[in-house]
């Protein structure tokens, strides 16, 4: 095994971030959270359902302002707005049914001031990178769920994001497709050099893809464990047969089991 690839300076810094929602009923959704994402790392978050994982993502990309605490992206504090350089892929299918695949991908650059040539190049690249070239004239309704999620990822890629946030992007897909999409994601991560944060409820997915996995508690979500996987940068889904994979997954589950029971309404 080659040594872990990521030893770069901090990219995103969360400092004592708390998020509460005014009622009724008032909800303490998140925090307090301290987190540093290193530039270029693949970080995953797992946690019981309803623990505030998605709130964490919303706060991290600036869609939602933290009730207290601060979020810094590339050294600048976020103020309730999504900064340039962050791409987000949501759990729900957010492809636009009225646009073709190509138009969907190009949507990401509609407001950009790039030259037409540059736009065409980027769109072409993203479309073929995600394996959508044959389908560029199709509409989302003609594609499978996995393909639609690729469209959404491609739409993010054309922006050349330096930080990519993914909120359970494969949650609605079947197991085989998930594994293959995981490989795609690793390839994307390696070739773009972007920092990736993946939110997922699948422990094996987190264990297989990430450099580092954060385990969150039941609501209000806090990190209760951080697991370094130590995978080489050049990896793919076949590492599920590696012995370390079992160890990592087991550690994640032992941290998470008690929290999951809590959300099911039982004592640990």
């Amino acid at each position, binding site marked *: 095994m080659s040594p872990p690839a990521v030893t770069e300076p901090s990219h995103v810094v969360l400092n004592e971030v708390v998020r509460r929602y005014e009622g009724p009923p008032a909800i303490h959704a998140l925090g307090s959270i301290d987190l540093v994402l290193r530039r270029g790392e693949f970080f995953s978050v797992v946690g019981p359902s309803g623990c505030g994982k998605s709130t964490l993502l919303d706060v991290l*990309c600036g869609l939602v302002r933290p009730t207290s605490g601060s979020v810094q992206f590339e050294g600048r504090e976020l103020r309730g707005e999504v900064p340039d350089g962050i791409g*987000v892929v949501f759990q729900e299918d*957010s492809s636009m*049914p*009225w646009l073709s695949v190509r138009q969907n991908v190009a949507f*990401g650059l509609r407001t950009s001031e790039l030259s037409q040539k540059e736009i065409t190049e980027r769109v072409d690249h993203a479309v073929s990178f995600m394996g959508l070239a044959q389908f560029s004239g199709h509409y989302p309704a003609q594609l499978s769920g996995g393909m639609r999620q690729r469209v959404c990822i491609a739409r993010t890629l054309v922006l050349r994001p330096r930080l990519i946030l993914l909120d359970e992007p494969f949650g609605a897909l079947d197991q085989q497709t998930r594994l293959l999409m995981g490989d795609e994601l690793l390839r994307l991560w390696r070739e773009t050099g972007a920092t990736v944060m993946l939110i997922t409820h699948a422990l094996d997915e987190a264990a297989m893809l990430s450099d580092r996995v954060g385990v969150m508690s039941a609501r209000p979500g806090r990190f209760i464990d951080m697991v370094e996987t130590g995978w080489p940068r050049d990896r793919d889904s076949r590492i599920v047969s590696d012995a370390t994979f079992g160890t990592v997954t087991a550690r994640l589950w032992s941290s998470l089991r008690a929290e999951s029971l809590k959300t099911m309404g039982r004592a640990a």
Partner: protein
Amino acid sequence: MLLEICCRTGIIDPLTIIPPSEMIVSMVDHIGSGEFNESIVNTFSTILLAFVLAIGCGTLAGALVHRSSRLRDVADPLLASYYSVPTFIFYPLLVALLGLGKAPLVVLGVLSAAPAVMISTLSGLDGVSPALMKIARVHRLSPARTLWWIVLPAALPRLFTGFKLALSYALIGVIAGEFILSGSGLGYAISFAYQSFDNRAMYGLMLFVLLVAVIANGILYVWEERLARRRSSG
């Protein structure tokens, strides 16, 4: 066909219903003769005016109510029971209020069509998925661009359903108004023909009105299908 045979063989009294073939001949005669040109222009311009006004008012009101949950609480029960009231019974009052002519017909058309547009605008706006709205924010779109690039296209299928309903409601309202109480228009012409026992003219005009209604609705239907086909698998 059955109707044609029944009429020809005298099973149905020709004073009641004339054979379909004769209806068509009569329609071609009467419309071709030009004596109804004024009525036709009158009726359809009224319908068009009511339709356009209904779409304008309905969409605006829908968008306005959608923005405020408090207005929404007031509007929802009103809209839910609106179509239980036969709007048409206001027509005599409108005639007394605005005089006989185009004005009460247009108001009647708008009264029957605008709430349908409003209802579909609300449901269309409700149906815009939160994920798409998040996308708009991630791409830092201005409010106008969010409306134009995301909200409108996402809500379009339901808006269209409202427009389709609005057309048929405006049509029904205006023609019914002319029919019951009016001095001009196609509805009036049919009712006049009925009262003067001119069955040929009556059936000819009736067929014409129904044909136009079916064709107008048919066009919107096909258009809607084309719009929807893209968004459904296949």
